């Protein structure tokens, strides 16, 4: 099983606008998941898929499970372990902006795009 970073510290959160979009996408597509991308083009942004569409494994870490009002199950947020090694000192907030496309992420057809805003984690 994939590991989860130790400690009770919150590593990832949603803005109210992103939570609203998660609610809308859940109605349309069912339970959701996030996997943080790296690399070019639409990289460095979170990808949103139907739960289980993207296979996670030992190479991934679960950063958090995002509770959203009105959504039955929390939404897991994953990242590859190798990428987490470079990101672990920052807290991530999933936001949403107007946009056009992004890999196979589910929100793109709605004319919006999930985006990560970051801050330093306090020790």
């Amino acid at each position, binding site marked *: 099983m994939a590991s989860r970073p130790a400690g009770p510290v919150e590593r990832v959160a949603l803005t109210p606008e992103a939570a609203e979009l998660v609610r809308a996408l859940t109605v349309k597509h069912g339970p959701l998941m996030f996997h943080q991308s*790296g690399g*070019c083009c639409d990289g460095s942004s979170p990808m949103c898929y139907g739960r289980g569409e993207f296979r996670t494994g030992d190479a991934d870490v679960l950063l958090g499970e995002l509770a959203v009002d009105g959504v039955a199950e929390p939404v897991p947020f994953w990242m*590859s372990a*190798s990428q987490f090694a470079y990101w672990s000192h920052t807290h991530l907030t999933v936001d949403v902006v107007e*946009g056009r496309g*992004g890999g196979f*992420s589910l929100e793109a057809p709605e004319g919006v795009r999930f985006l990560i805003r970051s801050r330093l984690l306090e020790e």
Partner: protein
Amino acid sequence: MSRYAAPGTEGALMAYQTRYDHWIGGSYVAPKQGGYFENPTPVTGQPFTEIARGTADDVERAIDAAHDAAPGWGRTPPAERAQVLNAVAQRMEEHLEALAVAESWENGKPVRETLAADIPLAIDHFRYFAGVIRAQEGSLSQLDEDTVAYHFHEPLGVVGQIIPWNFPILMAVWKLAPALAAGNAVVLKPAEQTPASVHYWMSLIADLLPPGVVNIVNGFGAEAGKPLASNPRVAKVAFTGETTTGRLIMQYASENLKPVTLELGGKSPNIFFEDVSDDGDDFYDKALEGFTMFALNQGEVCTCPSRALIQRTHYRSFLDAGIARTEAIVQGHPLDTGTMVGAQASNDQLEKILSYLDIGRQEGARVLTGGARAELGGELEGGYYVRPTILEGGNQMRVFQEEIFGPVVSVTGFTDFDDAMTIANDTLYGLGAGVWTRNGTLAYRAGRAIQAGRVWTNCFHAYPAHAAFGGYKQSGIGRETHKMMLEHYQQTKNLLVSYSPKKLGLF
């Protein structure tokens, strides 16, 4: 400086249609579900055409057309296929300026780059693969006096290609030229951010290709990309983009036991050894241009030299000269021939870059120049412009580890060769790198020590056909822009032939 008229306005070299459907089987086909989406130009943020919103039904139809065309195209003699590719190149050359304007309007990049790089490189790419397919030979192995193994190259059949938005025409051509040369039929999905310019290209060359050999299905990744990438009737998928989608495409390919080629980006180090500053000559000037290459194509290049490593002994003087060169960049209307940096390709791209400038500052990176959105006013007010930015910090910062895909370079110093190599290789990626020195031995040793598929040595951002391009580490699988890409689009057929009349004697 002069400015090309915007597409579709008075005096313009080209006009976009008001709508593009899917190009399937040699004609335009409306989307089964009837949906369209607006396509804005990053220059002003205003829509200029609408695009069919493809779904699985449209993808299936395109794959049908490709399967109808593939056997005939695959049997066409290599000389004839080469002639078609050369004719495509010739037609593009005749319309070079119009294609350059179309691409600039679509992507936001400066027309001087599309005139000098994107379109000429695309033209040459077709000519290169027209040449290599004629020169490619199978092989034979003489196993004994009467037994011979013949190796033939055969096309895969129908392949799927998913194209990125940073060089919409050139990246399409990087994938189309080897696939077509090898005798495959293609279903291509352009990026939803930049779907139109490949249709303008097709309008110029459609009469040269047999129907169904190239099919274009537009749409979003989740709706059109997935049905293409996961389709069991597609023999291979080629993708340029990012790591999570790359993994997802490999996952689909594993379900169908199909091969993939992937180009997934990088965080390319650009290393300036101290002897660069030994003289203020042409070479020094060239190295400063090499430093400033981070701003080429607004930084939206998988091999953007987005980490500059400068030896401590000349750190301050070289960096000061680099800042001056960066501040001399002309940013403005992409259709002005004097503009060096244009618009980012989309609003979400702009927002992502700004979010990185934010976390960079929080982590303690110093902004040496730029560091904000560029407000250019007038008709460019709604466009997506970022000031070329130099950050100074350390390699553990996220702005040194992640592809910002904007005109942003993160600068740090190094003490000696080993330190430079350690920093250069401390990254998840390995697509490109730059090495600058007057010492040939040092250049060679650095080039071999850096874990990247392409090490530009005393140059950067050159993309000629016949030099292999592809990634180490998490930057992908496969090598483009070289004849070795042909084999990524071919099967090997072995005929093992006995010319002996004698039985083995086992039965």
